[in-house]
């Protein structure tokens, strides 16, 4: 079916047929998983709209911005400091890498036992499926895991790639390395955009990104209520969309949604009954449209009340200090904030364990589901430590390893349902 965006997609050199296929699968998937929910918030209409236009209107906005000389920076990891990109009048978008389309192409140049996320971004590029990748003037990679590190080398044959080195420990010398990497990134962004990053610009950018984090923190506080006022699926979607949408618009819209949530909570209304088992998800990032596990969980009689994930609290827990005045101080504040991220690529990484048990306690969860993409070493290995610490805290955990395929859905259902039966009081 022709759409108003065909010409734009063609100009971006997408494979139109394959892309149409992807959109129809995505639409069906979204319909099944999201639109069938009962008693959804009105504010979700905005997110439904953004998602339905994810390859349309938003890409058009990016193209219009590009026509005015703005640059688009694509990223795969929450370590890439959006503050610097915004301060140089650039636009940062998270590239999703949450679908299996393109897997066949990716496996031509990557080993089969590579995590689904890496295969997905490589596959999207090779199959010309993703208008965000095609719109990016620069794609920023990072050295968070060996798989990604090596994949960016391969990827750079197909797209303009820049790689940031992320330290793997958090000692003083690592902090120095990280600060130096920030400065190197700053220069690169200034060069690409042609704009100098000044103190006033950076202050404004810090505020903007903090505001988005603050509204997501507010959302997380509200959803923690009993009965749970919003489904975990919806919150995941909100977190996913926070990586693409215009930050100001997003913050305003989620603010409205939070107002709606507040009145729901006052009225004592929930999306599920009070006694519904409360679960928390923990682990690997869940990029759009990786909704499989959340859907399985929430159709097994439980509700997700928190995500300890990069598409979740790991990305919004800490703010950049707004007290800094000089450019130098601001860069330090950024360096400090980002180095607090507790990605499994760090060693040791005890902060993550502390955060998980704190979250489990604060949210009063009945259990934790640990999610790792198959072949992801950092997270599959940490799962053992997470289980141990949760056991000490008296919180049961179920460890799931899966990818984006649908082959194991029945098996996942049995595991998750059995876990829900087990934790139900």
């Amino acid at each position, binding site marked *: 079916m022709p759409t108003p965006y065909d010409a734009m997609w063609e100009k971006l050199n997408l494979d139109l047929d394959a892309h149409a296929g992807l959109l129809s699968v995505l639409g069906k998937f979204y319909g099944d998983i999201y639109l069938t929910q009962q008693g959804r918030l009105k504010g979700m209409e905005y997110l439904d709209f953004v998602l339905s236009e994810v390859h349309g209107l938003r890409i058009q906005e990016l193209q219009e911005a590009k026509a005015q000389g703005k640059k688009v920076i694509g990223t795969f990891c929450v370590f890439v400091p959006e503050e610097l990109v915004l301060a140089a009048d650039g636009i940062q978008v998270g590239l999703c890498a949450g679908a299996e389309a393109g897997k066949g192409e990716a496996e031509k140049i990557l080993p089969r036992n590579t995590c689904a996320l890496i295969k997905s971004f490589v596959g999207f590029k090779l199959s010309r499926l993703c208008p965000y990748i095609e719109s990016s003037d620069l794609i920023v990679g990072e050295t968070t895991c060996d798989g990604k590190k090596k994949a960016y080398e391969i990827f750079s044959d197909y797209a303009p790639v820049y790689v940031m080195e992320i330290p793997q420990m958090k000692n003083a010398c690592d902090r120095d390395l990280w600060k130096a990497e920030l400065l190197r990134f700053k220069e690169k962004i200034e060069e690409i955009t042609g704009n100098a990053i000044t103190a006033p610009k950076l202050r404004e950018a810090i505020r903007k990104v903090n505001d988005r984090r603050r509204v997501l923190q507010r959302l997380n506080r509200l959803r923690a209520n009993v009965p749970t006022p919003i489904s975990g699926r919806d919150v995941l979607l909100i977190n996913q969309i926070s990586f693409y949408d215009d930050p100001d618009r997003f913050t305003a819209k989620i603010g409205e949604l939070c107002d709606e949530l507040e009145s729901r909570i006052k009225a004592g209304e929930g999306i599920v009954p009070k006694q519904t088992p409360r679960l928390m998800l923990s682990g690997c990032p869940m990029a759009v449209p990786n909704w499989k596990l959340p859907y399985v969980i929430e159709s097994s009689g439980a509700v997700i009340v928190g995500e300890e994930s990069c598409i979740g609290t790991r990305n919004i827990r800490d703010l950049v200090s707004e007290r800094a005045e000089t450019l130098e101080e601001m860069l330090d504040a950024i360096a400090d904030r980002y180095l607090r991220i507790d990605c499994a690529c760090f060693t040791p990484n005890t902060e993550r364990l502390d955060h998980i048990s704190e979250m489990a306690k604060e949210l009063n969860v009945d259990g934790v589901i640990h999610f790792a993409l198959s072949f992801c070493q950092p997270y599959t290995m940490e799962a053992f430590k997470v289980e141990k610490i949760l056991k000490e805290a008296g919180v*049961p955990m179920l460890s799931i390893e899966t990818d984006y395929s649908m*082959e*194991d859905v*029945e*098996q996942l259902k*049995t595991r998750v*349902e*059995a876990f829900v*039966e*087990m934790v139900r009081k």
Partner: protein
Amino acid sequence: MRGSETVAGIDIGSRSIELVVLLDQKIVHQAKVPTTFDPLGQCKKLMENAKPSRMVATGYGRKLFADSSGEVQVETITEIQAYALGARHLFPEAQTILDIGGQDTKVILLTPAGRVAKFEMNDRCAAGTGKFLEFMATALQIPLESFGEFALASDRRIQINSMCTVFAESEATSLMARGEGPENIAMGLHLAIVQRTMAMLRRIGMESPLLFAGGVAHNPCIRMLLEELLGEPLIVPENPDMVGALGAALYGTRSR
């Protein structure tokens, strides 16, 4: 609980379907049929003369069955819970349950009160399940029912290194070509399953005694090897493949 009502439990697995009917907690009827390519039709056959007032389904096909059953309302529970309930009812002393079924292997650790404390399931491939045995029996041209007996006639233990159904088959074939006795190869294949099962039991932190349920519990060689490696006796129910259906039926006798 209401008195004198019949309650049925049905366990729809990938290979077979079992039915247990209870009256006042006593088994009044039980039956088993192969799943075939028409599980719902097979369920209908099983249910022909049973008119239970309550019905609980478990196993891989539980949802399918629940959605398609007309008159009686069907509740569903997972195999994990069904096995826990069934096993505890038969043997209140059981602490850990091992269920090797047609398509997957499960281990369940119980709390002292008999609730599920923890469970593990094998991943999606068939390694270490009944499917693996079935496949290998076919490869060696031995009927599945006597495969265990056959392996017990071995005179030495060989190690089969691959647990992948495909690779294990080629390993078995090349052993055969080298003149290894088929009984010994069969023993090696059984050992491979038991070793893998032991790893799962260790991972979950198994506590004794262990109850062995599921269709593969009929296999004397697997039972023997398990007891040998555990260094202690197993509990094997008289009808090990009925434990899930029994558990489902017991679930139905709970007061709502």
